């Protein structure tokens, strides 16, 4: 999966699960302050990313450090590469 494909799929998760407009989905956006997610949404974000990318990240401690949409792109790319 290319970097752009990963970004597109992560953005789909934000549009489908959290009803966030496409225009707002920029890498520098803070997922809590700018995109309005809270701790409960993170549970659903993990479930949606697992489903979208076929990865297991539920117990991955690195999720706690995620702040921006760019962090999620990077984290997902790392997980994808690891899965190869």
């Amino acid at each position: 999966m290319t970097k752009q494909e990963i970004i597109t799929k992560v953005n789909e998760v934000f549009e489908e699960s959290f009803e966030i407009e496409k225009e707002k989905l920029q890498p520098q956006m803070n997922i809590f302050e700018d995109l309005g997610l809270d701790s409960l949404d993170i549970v659903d974000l993990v479930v949606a990313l697992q489903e979208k990318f076929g990865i297991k990240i539920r117990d991955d401690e690195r999720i706690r450090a995620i702040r921006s949409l760019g962090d999620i792109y990077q984290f997902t790319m790392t997980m994808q590469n690891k899965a190869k």
Partner: protein
Amino acid sequence: MQLKRVVITGVGAVSGLGTDVPSLIEGIEQGKSAVRYMEGWNQYNGLRCLVGAPAELKNEKAIPRRSRRSMGRMSIFAVQAVQQALVDADIPREMLPSGRLGCIIGSTMGSAQSLNEAFETLLPEKDLTQLKSMKFFQCVSHSAAMNVAHYLGIAGYVMATSAACASSLQALGTGYDLIRLGAQDVVICGGAEELHPMVTGSFDVLFATSSHYNHSPHQTPRPFDDKRDGLVCGEGSGILILEEYERALQREAKIYAEIVGYNTCGNGIHVSQSYMEAMISCIKEALNNAAVEPHDIDYINAHATATIQGDKEEAGAIREIFGNSVPVSSLKGYIGHALGASGAIELIIALMMMKKGRLYPTLNLKNVGAECNGIFHVTKPLKRDINILVKNCFAFGGINAALVCKKVNNT
């Protein structure tokens, strides 16, 4: 201690006949049935009843995602009905977090659709990792009450009465008691329920559903009729605003009626069979509570779901107490049986009858079943003043409830 008086100052409803009270009443006055053939239900092996009375889910995105995410279909219906009722009663928003306004919304259980989705996620692989955070909040039995209270910022009593088909009448009775005792000034009361093959199926396995009218859905359910063959599930929400009488008078609120009596009781005999004696005792106690006699009652809104036994027992109970002198009708033929929401939705319709001086007939009642005879069945629209009415709800689990409402003449 002098008990306070309690009046109804606002109503709101979502039902199979529309997403507000005017469309519900218009549908009933036109003799419409909300019962439909349910596409896709025939894939369930063993499900005999393939009809239902669905409500339309619309404008749900008017509720912000952060609030909507914990709501199943039934909670959205409840929020929409509550919003209508608050506008109808003209309750100011500042009242909501005051602690003097409560919210009691009953249902049989939480969202049936969400429960089903949770099981579908969880059971095949016994895997929790795909379960979303909000499923719990959509599935719990207090889902509608909790979601309404959270969305509106209600800080008073928040409760969920869960007694199947008596749920919303118990909510009204509990709200009535809280205001009478001075614990709350205003209580949002009612019920919400969701149509789902799992819900219909739970009655279907007990042979309590209608199964002979799958290809002529408008002809069922048939309360009190000799060709009745069971209930048809519906869905939606009915909400009434209960308010302390002096407060309502002071702010010159519109008053639909005063609640003057209520009773709920178990039959203590059987979980599914209805018993005339227990119904008689329930209705008589509600009349005692209201300090009225059977001859004072002008209309009875029956529970009558069109099951063979339930209708027979209810007709018997009414015959025993009222003879054939008090008009009786059931509204299940129009909107199906909205279970936990039925008591509140049907009470709203009965209050509209009171307001308009018109009695709406039992839809699909063509020939009264022999065992349902001897009471005054309303089979066509009648002009009739209603001063006092009785609303019955008799639930699976052997739980009965009856509420008595009286017109308030000085408004």
